[in-house]
């Protein structure tokens, strides 16, 4: 199950037309992928009069970091004008427990569904697959009522529960498929040694699941960090995530718009997931190679 991460394609020959074509394809596509990031970057370094001139791709005439500083610590997001930095730690506060709990529940469910024959397991799994397709927005209103009744509305536990609920289908799918790809002998051996359900999970299966764990962490970190509407409705005003401040800067209906600040704020907010991706691209592919495609 340790996947080969070395290239498996045919060996290259010296410069041939095909090789040139290959690089041309890659370079052009890479440009297509990078253009939006480039536009965001140069815009964030421009001044507003220059942006109003409308040369989208041009380099800034007088590059300035002013928009970045403004976005981080001075842009107005309501009565206070402290930029988006305010929400950063709230986002972290939501992110860490949400990622841990949702992966814990998802992996445990996936494990129970793959190795243990429990009555109704396939029905449970099938139902989870269906709800993976449902736009979660339609559940917001009834969930508010449920959460208010049990008293975890507007709190960190509330928002963690929400991210666990909506992360459950994907996390279960990933871990179930991964565990299903592991050799059954591992499991049988642990059983012969007398290990029980949770013992096998914690000391045999999870240590083997590192590649999948990385994929799960990447997916959940991006998803939860980028979330706006759930944090807004369920986290409570003391814990509003960074995306709420970003929205306050970018999305004002009747107020004036500063595009350089918008872009700087957007990039600052996207920094955490961007770093995660650029730093872990290799692990991501390895993790997927290790299991997600089987099953």
């Amino acid at each position, binding site marked *: 199950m340790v996947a080969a991460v070395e290239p498996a394609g045919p060996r290259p020959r010296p410069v041939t037309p095909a090789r040139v074509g290959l690089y041309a394809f890659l370079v052009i596509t890479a440009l297509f992928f990078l253009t939006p990031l480039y536009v965001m970057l140069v815009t964030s370094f421009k001044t507003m009069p220059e942006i*109003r001139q409308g040369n989208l791709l041009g380099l800034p005439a007088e590059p300035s970091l002013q928009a970045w500083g403004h976005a981080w610590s001075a*842009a*107005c*997001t*309501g*009565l*206070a*004008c402290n930029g988006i930095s305010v929400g950063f730690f709230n986002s972290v506060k939501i992110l860490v*427990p949400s990622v*841990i*709990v949702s992966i814990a529940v998802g992996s445990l469910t996936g494990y129970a569904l793959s190795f243990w024959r429990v009555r109704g397991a396939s029905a449970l799994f099938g139902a989870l697959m269906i709800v993976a397709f449902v736009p979660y927005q339609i559940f*917001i*209103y009834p969930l*508010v*009522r449920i*959460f*208010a009744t049990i008293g*975890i*509305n*507007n*709190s*960190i*536990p509330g928002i*963690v529960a929400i991210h666990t609920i909506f992360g459950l289908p994907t996390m279960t799918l990933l871990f179930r498929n991964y565990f299903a790809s592991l050799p059954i002998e591992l499991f049988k051996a642990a059983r012969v040694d007398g290990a029980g359900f949770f013992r096998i999970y914690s000391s045999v299966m999870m240590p083997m699941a590192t590649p999948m764990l990385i994929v799960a962490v990447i997916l959940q970190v991006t998803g939860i960090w980028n979330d706006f*509407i759930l944090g*807004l*409705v369920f986290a*409570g*005003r*003391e814990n509003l995530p960074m995306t*709420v401040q970003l*929205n*306050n*800067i*970018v*999305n*004002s*209906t*009747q*107020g*004036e*718009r*500063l595009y350089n600040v918008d872009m700087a704020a957007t990039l600052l907010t996207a920094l955490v997931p961007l770093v995660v991706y650029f730093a872990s691209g290799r692990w991501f592919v390895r993790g997927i190679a290790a299991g997600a495609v089987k099953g």
Partner: protein
Amino acid sequence: MKHSASVLALAMGLGWSGMAVAQEMKAEVIHWWTSGGESAAVKVFADQFQKAGGTWVDTAIAGGANARTAAINRTVGGTPPAMMQFNTGKQFDELVENGLLNDVEAVAAEQKWKDKIPPAILAATVRNGKMYAVPVNIHGQNWLFYNTDVLAKVGAQEPKSFDDLFPILDKVKAAGLIPLAFSGQKTWERNLFNAVMLGQGGAKLWLSVYGDKDPAAVKSAEFKNVAETYAKLRNYVDAGAPGRNWNDATALVIQGKAGFQIMGDWAKGEFIAAGKTAGKEYGCVVLSKAGGGYAMGGDVFAFPKTKDANTLKAQAVLEKVLLDPTTQIEFNNKKGSIPVRLDVDTSSMDVCAQKGAKMVADKNQQAPAQELLTPPAVTGAVEDVISSFWNTPGQSVETFQDKFAAALKSI
């Protein structure tokens, strides 16, 4: 460990709200004013409330729908803010019906608001004979802004009606500029249509269409004329208009790339930010033909029901603060709107605001904005119909009229 951490977080959350109760007159306010100018405006309220001994706890969420979603969910979930923003109109109808709002009758009677607020705005806050919200401003939604240089260049005077406007638009087009700076998003497509309806059809047609929802009015010749005028405006916008933000359209006028824009008075914020003065670099006028009207919208604050004595006290103080005459001038200067009280002196405001105040004072010019007359579901359905008409040049005016009448009746 994880468990104890969340218990701790929960306990901290409870402790926090416990503190809130212990402190005097703490009021959380949910609103959607988040940009620089809006922020300065809302600060006027916050400062005044602070002066009156209160503590303003600010919860700003951009986008009216986002803020209202949060506020309504909080109210239904049993943890309402002390005060929440709505647009003047029907957005809070059901909160009243379900008994989730406090009325503001006591303060209204004490301050004699009912004599001082224009009737259309007042009516929009009254349900079952009681006032349930405090209006704080009047936004005129149907202003025509123009670049004075562009007008001078083509040798034209300020138009008074749409009939005056078209020849000027032709001249601007001939001069190689964009005649009408437009932002092709649904809201603004509807806003433009409404401006045409008031300007061409007058307040009478306006009220029978949106007020009485009379299908005969929609099928009338006057309405047909409005639709044709609206359709004609398509020829004067540029190719980049669809999807454009309203403020980018304003920027075109500011830079002299376009001649005109029809927009609400909040557009003044963009002119001010670019260092322009009303009456100098840019002008403003409300087009009308035989008794048109000033489309009055705006914002109100509503006060969710609470049993907490401190919050009740805070609500009463807030109500008074919002409509204090000096606060009104200061707030509205920053917001770009005009005061909601007719008895305040507006001579210190800019020329557009003064023009607006004059119209608001004239009973014949007061036209309630669409949001004051139709509930959000109908406003939305009408918006879809208008937007689809604007973007489908092949659609006949008769089809549009049929769809429009159906949308007014929807549900």
